[in-house]
Structures are given as structure tokens and as C-alpha cells.
């Protein structure tokens, strides 16, 4: 338990996820969207790892690829010291018991024709756990655990508000006592006053059930509050990965700096806007050469246009950043 390797719950190496674009009568593949392009990271037991970035940066795809909701195009995933990509059949199902997911839209994530009780008993049915009476009992307990009433088991999803539905989704996710929960924008669709309730609930459950979260969000204020370490993504790649304090106090990558600059601050009053980042996120079908951030980067150098900076895997304290500003651009290094 104490040795560092045992602290690692999930380890991903060089993950790629490309989606083909097909055209014409024979659906020939004409191009690829490189949604996730060579990403490596580790998730430690009990931590919350945040994935942040703008729309289209691949953060949701990465979250789903790591748990094989999408099959990776390439790369290795080790989950609980098993080669997760090689698993199939019974073994895969067994491993998946330990991984659950919470989605952004609690309206779409619950079957409108099932009662809350049926929804919460389904995980046990799929895995053949408990008998009928125990399942109902467990569903009632789960509802109370997420702050709803046990009597709600016979109601349908439409009878609940958005925040309550997200609580039901959370109850379903924790039903099998998983180790890892991937939270994909779990509060983005909710009102401000409800967001705080859900974030508090997720924090309480993490302490109570020793959960590990992969927390995908575009909202840096939420990430700042909720996560331990943060990975910043841009166009399919992680550009910086650091403990939260380090990242927000001392952002190193120019893109991270721009993102943090762009967060509207509450209570400081109207001000002249600082110079914001110009340009827009380029298409992942045909990303710019070299560092994909270079067309928008205020510190762009010659080397950035031709060579891709690499994010060094992080064994030490040092926070890896993929930027030529922090690498000596020697004659033959990098690609």
C-alpha cells in the first residue's frame, strides 16, 4: 500500500484516439480527426485529476477512451495493475465494475421509462449481485446516501429537478462501489446554486467511499475548487500537468496562462478587459505544424512552427509542460 507503484490506479501510455472521416459511395476514409493524440498520464488512488480545456480539445474523448467506452487507436492502459486493453469478456466486465461514469446531462442519462428504483437496481442485475429484496434495500440506501428520500424509488426521472437527477446518476455510479469515477462535466448543465450542492456531495462521497475521480470540465473555477492535480489539454494533447496550486499560481504553458487570464473574476468590478488570446482553436483534422498552439501563442519562436514539443512523463516533482520555452531546443532533440 505504501510503495509508490501501488498508489497508481490507472496508468495510460501514448494513448491515441483517431476518428475516421468517411466520404463518398464506398465510405472511403478521407481524413482522421486526431481527438486524442499521444497522451500519457497516471491517476493516483484517492485523488481527483482534472482535465480542462476548451470544446473540441479532446478532454471528453480522453476520459471515455481511458475507460474503453471508446476503443483506443493506440496506446497502453494499465488499470489496477492489469493490462486493461487486453481484457475481454468476463474479465473486462469484472474490471468495469470498478469504473463508473457520470455524464453532463442528467436529463439524457436516465431512461425515462424506468423508475428510479429500477435504474439503481440495474447495476446489481448486470453483475448478478444480491437478491431481489436486497437490491431494493440497497437502492433505498443509495438514494439516502446522495441526499434523496428512500421513498423516491417508485418515481420516474421526470418527477425530479436537474440537480436531483444528477444525484440519481451519482447514486447509480456509486452503486457497485467503484474505485474510479469519470465525471464528464457533471455540473455544467446545472444552475449555480445547484452546482455547489453537487460538488459538495461528490466531495463527501469521495471521503466516505475512498473514490478516485477523473474530473472533466471546461470551468477553471470549478477545477480550482475540486481537483488535486490538473491536466490542461489543447487540440488532443496535454500541454501541462501540475498540482492545482502550482498550476494556478505559476502556470507555465502560454495556453494555461491565457486560460487563467480569461476566467472572469467575481467581485473585482468592471474593468478594461486585458488583452485576450487572439484567434480560435484550429481544426483537429488538420492541426498546425509543430506545436499546435503556435498560431495563437504570444511567445512563438521558430522552433515552435516545425517541431512538436513533448510532455515529459513526470516521475519527479517537476510539472511537465510541453513547450519549447522550457526545453533547450538543441540541434537534435524532440521530433
Amino acid at each position, binding site marked *: 500500500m505504501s510503495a509508490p507503484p501501488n498508489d497508481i490506479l490507472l496508468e495510460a501510455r501514448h494513448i491515441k484516439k483517431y476518428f475516421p472521416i468517411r466520404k463518398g459511395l464506398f465510405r472511403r476514409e478521407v481524413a482522421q480527426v486526431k481527438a486524442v493524440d499521444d497522451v500519457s498520464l497516471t491517476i493516483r488512488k484517492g485523488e481527483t485529476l482534472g482535465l480542462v480545456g*476548451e*470544446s473540441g480539445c479532446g478532454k471528453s474523448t480522453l476520459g471515455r477512451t481511458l475507460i474503453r467506452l471508446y476503443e483506443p487507436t493506440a496506446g497502453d492502459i494499465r488499470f489496477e495493475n492489469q493490462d486493461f486493453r487486453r481484457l475481454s469478456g468476463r474479465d473486462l466486465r469484472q474490471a468495469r465494475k470498478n469504473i463508473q461514469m457520470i455524464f453532463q446531462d442528467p436529463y439524457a442519462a436516465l431512461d425515462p421509462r424506468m423508475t428510479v428504483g429500477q435504474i439503481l437496481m440495474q447495476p446489481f442485475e448486470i453483475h448478478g449481485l444480491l437478491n431481489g429484496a436486497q437490491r431494493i434495500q440497497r437502492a433505498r440506501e443509495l438514494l439516502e446516501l446522495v441526499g434523496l428520500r428512500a421513498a423516491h424509488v417508485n418515481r420516474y426521472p421526470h418527477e425530479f*429537478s*436537474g*440537480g*436531483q437527477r444528477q444525484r440519481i446518476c451519482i447514486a447509480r455510479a456509486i452503486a457497485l462501489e467503484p474505485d474510479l469515477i469519470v465525471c464528464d462535466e457533471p455540473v455544467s448543465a446545472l*444552475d*449555480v*446554486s*445547484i*452546482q*455547489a*450542492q453537487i*460538488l*459538495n456531495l461528490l*466531495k463527501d462521497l469521495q471521503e466516505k467511499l475512498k473514490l478516485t475521480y477523473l474530473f472533466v470540465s*471546461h470551468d*477553471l*473555477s*470549478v477545477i*480550482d*475548487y*475540486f481537483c488535486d492535480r490538473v491536466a490542461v489539454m489543447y487540440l488532443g494533447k496535454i500541454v501541462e500537468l501540475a498540482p492545482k496550486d502550482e498550476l*494556478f499560481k505559476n502556470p507555465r504553458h502560454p495556453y494555461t496562462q*491565457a*486560460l487563467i*487570464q*480569461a*476566467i*472572469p*473574476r*467575481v*467581485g*473585482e*468590478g*468592471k*474593468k*478594461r*478587459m486585458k488583452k*485576450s*488570446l*487572439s484567434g*480560435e*482553436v484550429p481544426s483537429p483534422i488538420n492541426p498546425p505544424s509543430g506545436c499546435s498552439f503556435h498560431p495563437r501563442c504570444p511567445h512563438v519562436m521558430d522552433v515552435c512552427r516545425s517541431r512538436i514539443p513533448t510532455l515529459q512523463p513526470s516521475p519527479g516533482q517537476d510539472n511537465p509542460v510541453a513547450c519549447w520555452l522550457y526545453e533547450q531546443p538543441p540541434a537534435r532533440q524532440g521530433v
Partner: protein
Amino acid sequence: MQDSVVVSVRNLETSFFTKMGPVRAVNDVSYDIHRGETLGIVGESGCGKSVTSFSLMRLIEHPGRITGGQVLLQGRDLLQLPEARMEDVRGGEMAMIFQEPMTALNPVLTIGHQIDEQVLRHKKVTPKEARERSIEMLSLVGIPSPEERYHNYPHQLSGGMRQRAMIAMALSCDPVFLIADEPTTALDVTIQAQILELIQNLQQKFRMSVQFITHDLGVISEISDRVLVMYGGQMCETADTVELFNNPRHPYTAALIASRPKFGSRPHRLTTIEGSVPAPHELPPGCPFYNRCPRRLDECRVQRPPVSTIKPGHQVACFNPL
């Protein structure tokens, strides 16, 4: 040394006549906006902030109806105008931009065509002059190569560029008053920052009055001179932006600010507001916030708290303010 009042809303009331009975979506709301000023209206979904804006534009559709009050634009009551005259005002003196530019723009007409149309409707110009005006506006809002973009259809532009095109259209006839209804909610943070910067620059340039609606406290805090907080169709509190965020007096305002994760300060738990926003037809007879309020008194249940001025420029509708 305050500038003149451009917009004055007095006791506005808008109701929807639904099967479950009439619902007051906007209930006795009053405020002024001065020349060159930005009023931010903030609130959660269903608080009536968008219905207020649509009421000002007189764009409320069946089964809704404006059932009372006045909307004075430069002294003239818009609610008394015949529809034909109102059409001159809309897009002329007063314009609006929306959250989702893809649904607000016509997908089968080019951007240029749509701006031309508006200029021709409101100004005495030839088609050629209208075209020049449109291209000038596109370049003003920072769209690169405007002559080519003029011929583009909305789907050929990115989200940020579409929002710029919509701003170009809204400002093409020199409005004195602009309503921006969640204009950056659908955009990424770095693009949001660009659009907010653009709106501020244009506002200064043309000395427009702006009503800016959003649910995002950070955005409202950075763009507004004054803020109006709404809940359940009613005004809770209005004050200068710095005053409101640093010295909120209505329990709802205070709770809303506290429940937002704040950059740099990390409490172990966030302050929450228990329960959820009541449905419009379930609003309590007294204060709409009664069910969730930590400071409620008996009288709040049956009596609606009147709006009172607690210091110059700071008004609160609460029997037991902080």
C-alpha cells in the same frame, strides 16, 4: 454627474396564461439605465431575466402577454406604440443579441444579405450603400477579410465569428440601447473574453446603453456598472457592481455569490442554497425566496417584501436584509 436616463422600466409585469393558470414570469420590475451604462441582470434559469428582455423588445408570444407597466425608451413608452412603429424601433434604436447565434441567424441567407436587409429597412440608403455599411460593420467587429465573409452563410463561420456577425448586425443601425441575452454562454472562455472585450469597446465608442443578461457571476462582475439580481420573476437587489459583490444585502444574492467556487479561495465545502428554484406556478405568495431562505421571518411567507433603498443606489427587496 450622471448621464441622462435612456431606458426606464416601470413596474413591468408579464404573464403567461398556461393551462395551469396564469403565471407571472415578470412581476413588478423597475429599473433605469443611463447613457453609456451597462446594467447586468443576473439570476438562475426561470428567474425571468430573459422574459424581461423579450418584454422590452415586445417579443413575447402567445400564451404570454405584457400585463402592466411601462418601458420608456428616451421618454417614449414602447408598450403604447402601434406594432408598425415598434418595428422601426426594433433593430433601429434598440437591438438585441442572443445566446445561440446559429439559431438567431437565418441559415439560408448569407451574412451580408441579412445585415443589408436590416440596414435597408431602417435607413434611407441604396442597396450599394447598405452593402458598404455591412462590410464596414463586419470589419468593425473584427471579422477578418469582411468582403469575403459578406458572402458566407452562417454555417461557414465558427461560433465566435457568428457571434461577431450578430453583433455587427445589431449595431448596424446605430442603436442607443443594446440588449445582450447570454451572448457568451455558448462560447469557450478564450473566445468569451474576446467577445466581452469587443462589446465593451463598441459600447464606449458609440456611448450605448447595454442590458447584459447572464447567469455567470464572473462575467456580470467584469462587464457591468450596475447589477440587478432577479429571483422568481422579481427583483431581489440592485446596486453598483463592486458594492453588490462585496456587500450583498439580500440573502439570495449573498448565497449565490458564496455558492460559486471563487478563484484563489478554497473552502473545504461550498456554501449551498438548499432546495431548488420553485416552478413558476408554485411560487409562494410572499417572498419568492421564502422556502430556501436562511433568514426568513413569518411575514415573508404571506407578504411580498417591497423594494426599499438602503443606501443611495442600493435597493433591496427583503424584510430581513443582511
